[in-house]
């Protein structure tokens, strides 16, 4: 599925060069149609998901209207609610990029959780010997340690995939369990602050190494850095030869190899970059939230990140709005529990429904005439706007 997307992009990029060009107006219409398809199908899935979920609520005897009202008030309806949603979205941005970047190569990496935890642990571990260092140096080295830990951890998954053919999905998930076990072992052993009795933790950071909130907000800097990271990932994948090479390799490995592209290094590099970015989420949890590394780093961000990346169709620029939406739903979950008196799992039912429907929606691309220029019946258009993935004439 992911591979298909990459093929489509690569093929349409080719076709724009190879085939006679359609008139500008038609080109624009075709462009708009494809963009609209990419927005309307996931939004449709979202709407359908909410519809089905409303039926589910109604069957429990709860009012769907009250539910939607609470989602709005809890997630978006006030300054407090908005900041709550943004705060929750911040770590999810990094976690989603960890999925979206390798997806460019057709890889499904779901072990971001492990990179987040190890990133946080690495940041906390280097902070102890750095105690007393200047603020800038301390924070920079903590972030660097996190980036390295995440890059090595998931880069290893990429390398195993590239050179040993090990399935990256399973490997990354299992590595994530190992990462959490390793983190627990170190937090409860070598790195434990002897003063942390009933909640084993690493030593608390110097006050100077703590990262505060964004000016005027109660949201930490992870949000701003996460947005920059999304922009960076988009530029990398859409506007650089490296990103183009990754998409080719994702579309057809053989073709990429024949072209002389360094497929193995691309796979390793993109998974490593994903891991490094996920690890930044852990760094911010330590530096901006907890002040040390402890078991609370295992918060499940990595798994919500998978949902977000798929909802965003692996597009780094679509990740922030989707993360904000999911953050809002999670932010409202508390209010929903308190007012509707439903268990917390209700929100998981909604998230699960959305995920399934979005995956099912993936099969609909190219099936609607209105979004598919090659079905418009115009010969000239057909010449210039081939169906996605069709062989060259």
């Amino acid at each position, binding site marked *: 599925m992911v591979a298909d997307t990459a093929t489509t992009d690569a093929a349409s990029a080719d076709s724009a060069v190879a085939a006679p060009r359609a008139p500008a107006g038609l080109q624009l219409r075709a462009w708009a149609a494809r963009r609209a398809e990419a927005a309307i199908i996931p939004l449709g899935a979202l709407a359908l998901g909410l519809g089905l979920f409303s039926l589910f609520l109604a069957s429990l005897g709860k009012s769907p209207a009250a539910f939607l009202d609470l989602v709005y008030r809890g997630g978006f309806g006030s300054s*407090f609610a908005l900041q*709550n949603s943004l*705060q929750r979205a911040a770590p999810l941005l990094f976690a989603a990029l960890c999925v979206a970047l390798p997806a460019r190569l057709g890889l499904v990496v779901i072990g971001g959780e492990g990179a987040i935890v190890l990133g946080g642990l690495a940041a906390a571990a280097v902070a102890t010997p750095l105690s007393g260092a200047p603020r800038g140096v301390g924070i920079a080295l903590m972030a660097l340690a996190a980036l390295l830990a995440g890059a090595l951890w998931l880069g290893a998954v990429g390398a195993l995939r590239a050179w040993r053919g090990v399935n990256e999905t399973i490997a990354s998930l299992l590595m994530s369990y190992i990462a959490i076990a390793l983190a627990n072992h170190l937090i409860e052993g070598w790195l434990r602050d002897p003063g942390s009795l009933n909640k084993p933790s690493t030593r608390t950071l110097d006050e100077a190494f703590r990262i505060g909130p964004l000016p005027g907000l109660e949201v*930490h800097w992870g949000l701003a850095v996460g947005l920059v990271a999304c922009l960076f990932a988009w530029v990398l994948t859409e506007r650089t030869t490296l990103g183009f090479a990754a998409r080719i390799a994702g579309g057809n490995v053989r073709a990429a190899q024949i072209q002389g592209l360094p497929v193995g290094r691309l796979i390793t590099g993109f998974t490593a970059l994903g891991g490094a970015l996920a690890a930044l989420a852990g760094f911010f949890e330590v530096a901006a939230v*907890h002040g040390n590394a*402890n078991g609370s780093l295992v*918060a*499940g961000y990595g798994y919500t990140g998978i949902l977000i990346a798929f909802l965003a169709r692996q597009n780094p620029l679509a990740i922030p709005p989707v993360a904000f939406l999911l953050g809002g739903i999670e*932010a409202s979950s508390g209010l929903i529990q*308190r007012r509707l008196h439903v268990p917390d799992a209700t929100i998981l039912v909604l998230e699960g429904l959305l995920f399934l429907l979005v995956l099912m929606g993936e099969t609909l691309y190219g099936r609607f005439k209105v979004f598919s220029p090659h079905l418009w019946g115009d010969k000239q258009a057909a010449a210039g706007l081939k169906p996605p993935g069709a062989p060259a004439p």
Partner: protein
Amino acid sequence: MAHHSISRRTLLGGTAVLGLSALSARGALAAGPMTVGVIYVGPKDDYGYNQAHAKGAAALKGLPGIEVVEEENVRETTDVQKTMESMINMDGASLILPTSFGYFDPHVLIEAKKNPKVQFRHCGGLWTEANPKNAGSYFGYIAQGQYLNGIVAAHATKSKKLGFVAAKPIPQVLNNINGFLMGARSVDPAITCQVIFTGEWSLAVKEAEATNALIDGGADVITCHVDSPKVTVETAARRGAFVCGYHADQSALAKDKYLTGAEWDWAPIYKGFVTGMQAGKAPPNFLRGGLADGFVKMSAYGPAVSEAARKNADAVKAEMMKGGFAIIRGPLKDNKGNEIAAAGKGLPENAPELESTGYLVEGVRGSA
């Protein structure tokens, strides 16, 4: 951790229930209904730690002038800060009870500073004089319950091997394991206890594996200290082993295999908090208690518990009700051969040393 407050506690002697400061609570409270926000780290119906708190919260719901709002599965991240703020801003909560240990530092401390008119009482026991005065902590000496579990287990075991499924090797858990075996050894000094640590507070698969491994190793009475004992209790009962419960009453899960259990009883504690606040008095900042103070209670004896076992356990319980019962008393070594307590020396339930227990007593197989 809280050595400061501990020495203070010792100073004040063996009193179990201490109100170290009584700030006047929010004056406006008397006017409208008072809202209490209760926050759980797991599901409210986990047959364990969270259910015990939810039962305490449920006892508040019938009280006049009290509204209770609850949120379950709240992570120990900024999520819990936002939950507290949401309860304060949107529900008007004036007392917040964040019940998971990991909520305290930094989350409760941050919110207590931010909302000086709201009272925060956290379950776990970390509050010190340096912390905000509108925050506080409460906890109970539940190792007493595990000691009584051990007595009943000793009368039931045939193999003289007990099994303990534990989450993490932290003082509160180690005290429970030690309590369980010391209780059993008070009946029969030949009894041993194998412990398996799962590493997490809630990890159903490992808990089931650990329970099976303990029974395969010959243990015929099982107890545990994890957030939700459900899996351990059901697995053990299905394998034909006896079960001692923990946190809440799990008798429905093990039927006639359930011997007894060490349960929290938060209802009287929470009622005390709110009635005090309704009268304009803030809850104590540091509150501890055991069986005698109503923080801890025992499940009703199951059908398999012999008359002799009941008598034995009831007699020790009566002793504990007087206060100052020493589970750890010399001469006693840990399971590595180091002396813990010299002859004639004992640690009563409120001994500060128990806050930093790092050993397992001799006869426990497993390492901290």
